[in-house]
């Protein structure tokens, strides 16, 4: 094999071309001279000797060229030539290059960014070792259906852990809630409560300090805490001396014993041991705190379920509990990605369609340009460019385009990833951190390069089948064109079909969203403000004093029309369920709320019967409630409930009024049975703070500062979490559907633009190619209208075909998003019609614009052109 010296020699030949060529010329000349001298010595006259020497040698130029090809640059030089020529072409056809590169970049960039997110959300949502061994466990009491499924007790967990036959490690995860943490700077942050063993279940160790022990979970010993990485950075600047320091969690002093690694539950600020509850709690099943375990390596979920069921049954009967108790296990992975499926696959499909449209676009562009270059290629072939050389030339042009498109795509992917994560219409799993995925990137770039190469080569391959003479002699740009016209039309049809599917999906999302936000919630969200505020001292006595005083202070503000409070936000608050017992009926589940007078006036729930609570009711000394219409209908059908006792709890409250229904959790939720207790200070300890509801007089913006002052003026030190308008949290409640609509709308729009660009450029090239033909037609009397019609008709056929195929495709694929739609069928005629109309009209306009240009052609100029 030629070594490095050989390539150095070649490089020298490229760089110092003249020197090498000169050497060859000189060497050949020496040969000729020597031969001539020999012949002369043999007696030939000088002139004849030279003549004969030259004859015997053959063509000096030819051998010199061949020699240079071998010794000189050869392959390397032609590559450089090709590249130089490609760059020149790239620049000469700036418009073409820009469209091609931008198209590829969009396809590659979007595809990569989105699939990177999907990778983080679906394919690797649990960045722990052996995530398939993680399960959630429930205990099942026989014969009670779904109601018989409970979370295991902490005693169960500890028994199973010690047993080691099924679980390698197991723990209770109470989950996170927002709690006031004071590190010298009080703030409400997410605090997660977990039992010992939780970190070990996931296979994570603190980056500093220790994790929780079983001892830490006992109520009697001083509280300890772990800090999340992010929180330790913001509050302590990552100081490693933080171990042993004291912080306050919900008023209770806690010692920091460790810091968790970066990226682990990034949203959680502080971890505290669970349960730290009074005696007896640890043996209780069904406390609502999920139990998560790591199965022994190699143990399947089904086998783990059956062997643990046996263990539980034996132990339960030994302790005198009823026999037949079993367990059920749920894959932690499945539960983490649950619900993400439809939207993820929809987005994946949409983005794949965009990549496909992009590739089809580039294919169309290259085909169209290839067709116009048929003559150029024929000329180059006729003056000696070999087939291989031509193919190499076209190849390097395509590679150039693909490389530029791919590079731009990488940049786009990089730039758009964060933006995409920000508007992603799905809740990313706790620990998923999307980053640019190299494999996806490679895939997209390869698709782009492959497409460019394939369709860039078609003209060259076709040329090699075409007889040079006929191509040149025909002197007509249509030679070789029918094929490209037909394939161009196919490409248009494919693009249109994909575009229709994308647009139909986007249209469905938009329609669904419009319906979602126009739903009557039962109250007017833009008419009130909410203030979430809580005293730093969490004792119930402080809260019982504070909130009524605060509401009164707020009510006194001149800008306030009405003010009240409730222990829940209308949307997204956690519920407290009670059961109303009616004779001869199943217990009716109701949601219980505590309210301070003024709440109904502030939020705007209309009074339907009876009266609204007043300040006097707060000292009534007996429980008073207001119920909503649904509760009234269910429990007191046909009679007025006002003045009656509601059969709820140990001390049935008196119903003083009935108010309108509202949609508890936003538009997609059902109306629920609601019972509003007038707060009298007797409610048991509630960790959840009250929310103050304020109906302003006039513009609410001026009120915010006044509300803050009021919150601080009443007495105890307080923390104001946020002041929001009703609109804010209603709009937050539709965040996910809105993002879905925005993202799919965006993808549909990009698909539309790409399709239009593709049709436009293909038609434009067709016009250029057929300039002469058009000239002939016009010379024979065709009107410009006729010419436009002819050109547009050529595009109209594939567009119609594409529209038909697209509707079929949309009909089949939009089922996927059925579960994402609100009161909209996946085959909504309006959305489909809008998609058809938008694409059809855009397509015809895209074809008509270049066609009109064709019609303006001066026949004389056209006939002379070639």
């Amino acid at each position, binding site marked *: *094999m*030629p*070594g490095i010296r*050989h390539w150095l020699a070649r490089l020298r030949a490229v760089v110092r071309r003249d020197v090498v060529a000169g*050497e*060859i010329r000189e*060497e*050949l000349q*020496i*040969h000729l001279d*020597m*031969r001539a001298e*020999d012949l002369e010595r043999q007696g030939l006259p000088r002139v004849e000797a030279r003549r004969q020497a030259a004859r*015997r*040698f*053959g*063509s*000096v130029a*030819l*051998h010199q060229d*061949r*020699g240079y*090809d*071998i*010794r000189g640059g050869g392959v390397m030089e032609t590559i450089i030539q090709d590249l130089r020529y490609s760059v020149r072409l790239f620049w000469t056809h700036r418009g073409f290059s820009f469209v091609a590169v931008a198209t590829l970049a969009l396809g590659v960039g979007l595809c990569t960014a989105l699939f990177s997110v999907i990778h983080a959300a679906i394919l690797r949502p649990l960045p722990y070792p052996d995530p398939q061994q993680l399960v959630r466990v429930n205990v099942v009491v026989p014969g009670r259906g779904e109601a018989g499924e409970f979370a295991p007790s902490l005693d169960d967990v500890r028994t199973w852990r010690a047993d080691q036959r099924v679980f390698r490690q197991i723990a209770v995860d109470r989950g996170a809630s927002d709690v006031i943490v004071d590190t010298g700077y009080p703030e409400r942050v997410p605090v997660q409560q977990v039992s010992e063993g939780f970190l070990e279940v996931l296979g994570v160790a603190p980056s500093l300090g220790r994790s929780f022990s079983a001892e830490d979970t006992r109520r009697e010993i001083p509280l300890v805490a772990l800090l999340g990485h992010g929180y330790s950075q913001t509050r302590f600047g990552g100081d490693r001396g933080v171990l042993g320091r004291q912080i306050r969690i919900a008023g209770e002093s806690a010692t920091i014993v460790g810091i968790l690694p970066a990226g682990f539950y990034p949203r959680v600020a502080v971890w505290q041991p669970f349960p730290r509850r009074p005696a007896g709690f640890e043996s209780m099943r069904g406390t609502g705190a999920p139990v998560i375990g790591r199965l022994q390596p190699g143990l399947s979920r089904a086998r783990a379920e059956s062997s643990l069921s046996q263990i539980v049954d034996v132990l339960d009967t030994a302790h005198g509990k009823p026999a037949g108790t079993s367990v059920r296990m749920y894959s932690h992975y499945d539960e983490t990605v649950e619900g993400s499926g439809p939207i993820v696959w929809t987005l994946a499909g949409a983005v794949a369609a965009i990549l496909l449209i992009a590739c089809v676009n580039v294919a169309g562009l290259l085909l169209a340009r290839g067709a116009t270059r048929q003559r150029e290629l024929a000329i180059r072939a006729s003056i000696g460019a070999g087939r291989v050389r031509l193919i190499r030339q076209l190849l390097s042009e395509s590679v150039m385009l693909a490389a530029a498109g791919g590079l731009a795509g990488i940049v786009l992917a990089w730039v758009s990833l964060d933006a995409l994560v920000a508007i992603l219409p799905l809740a990313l799993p706790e620990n998923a951190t999307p980053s640019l995925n190299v494999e996806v990137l490679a895939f997209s770039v390869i698709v782009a390069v492959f497409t460019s190469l394939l369709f860039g080569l078609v003209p060259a391959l076709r040329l090699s089948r075409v007889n040079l003479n006929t191509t040149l002699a025909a002197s007509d740009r249509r030679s070789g064109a029918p094929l490209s016209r037909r394939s161009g039309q196919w490409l248009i049809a494919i693009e249109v079909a994909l575009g229709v599917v994308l647009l139909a999906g986007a249209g469905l999302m938009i329609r669904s969203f419009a319906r979602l936000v126009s739903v009557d919630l039962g109250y007017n969200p833009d008419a009130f403000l909410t203030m979430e505020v809580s005293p730093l001292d969490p004792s119930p006595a402080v809260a019982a004093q504070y909130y009524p005083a605060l509401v009164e202070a707020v009510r006194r503000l001149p800008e306030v029309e009405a003010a009240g409070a409730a222990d829940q936000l209308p949307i997204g608050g956690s519920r407290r369920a009670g059961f109303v017992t009616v004779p001869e009926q199943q217990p009716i589940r109701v949601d219980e709320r505590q309210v301070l007078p003024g709440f109904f006036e502030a939020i705007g729930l209309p009074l339907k019967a009876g009266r609204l609570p007043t300040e006097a009711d707060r000292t009534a000394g007996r429980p008073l409630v207001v119920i909503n219409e649904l509760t009234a209908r269910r429990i007191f059908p046909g009679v007025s409930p006002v003045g009656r006792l509601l059969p709820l709890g140990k001390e049935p409250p008196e119903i003083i009024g009935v108010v309108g229904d509202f949609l508890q959790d936003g538009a997609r939720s059902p109306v629920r049975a609601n019972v509003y207790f007038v707060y009298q200070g007797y409610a048991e300890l509630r960790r959840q703070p009250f929310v103050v509801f304020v109906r302003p007089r006039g513009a609410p913006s001026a009120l915010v500062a006044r509300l803050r002052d009021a919150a601080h003026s009443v007495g105890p030190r307080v923390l104001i979490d946020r002041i929001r308008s009703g609109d804010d949290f209603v709009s937050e409640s539709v965040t996910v559907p809105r993002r879905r609509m925005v993202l799919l709308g965006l993808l549909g729009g990009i698909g539309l633009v790409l399709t239009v660009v593709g049709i436009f450029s293909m038609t434009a090239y067709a016009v250029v190619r057929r300039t002469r033909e058009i000239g002939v037609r016009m010379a024979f009397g065709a009107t410009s209208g006729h010419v436009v019609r002819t050109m547009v008709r050529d595009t109209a056929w594939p567009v119609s075909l594409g529209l038909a195929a697209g509707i079929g495709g949309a009909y089949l694929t939009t089922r996927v998003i059925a579960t994402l739609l609100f009161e909209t069928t996946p085959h909504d005629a309006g959305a489909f019609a809008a998609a058809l109309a938008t694409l059809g009209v855009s397509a015809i306009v895209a074809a008509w614009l270049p066609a009109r240009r064709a019609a303006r052609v001066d026949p004389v100029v056209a006939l002379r052109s070639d």
Partner: protein
Amino acid sequence: MRKTNSDQLHGTLDMLVLKVLGDGPLHGYAIAVRLEKLSKEVLQVEEGSLYPALYRMEARGWLSSDWSVTDTGRRARFYRLTRGGRVQLAAEQESWARLTLAVRAVMGS
């Protein structure tokens, strides 16, 4: 890796050039003269085609070349066998011997 020539003319020419240079370095014209003596046919077509062949063999690493001065004091480019060239020559000779042996066996002489 040893390349064997598929092209008969190239193969023969290459083998002869290697053989000629086996006796010592020569310049292009001298090679042509030797070849003429060995075989009338090889360079019958065009003498010039010797040079691309020489360059090709040099590119393959069989030959090396240098500008030098002839006995008569003329400047010329001299070609010599490299070690690779010698190995190639030996290989060519061996395969040639095998071929002639085989042909002789078939022809039954």
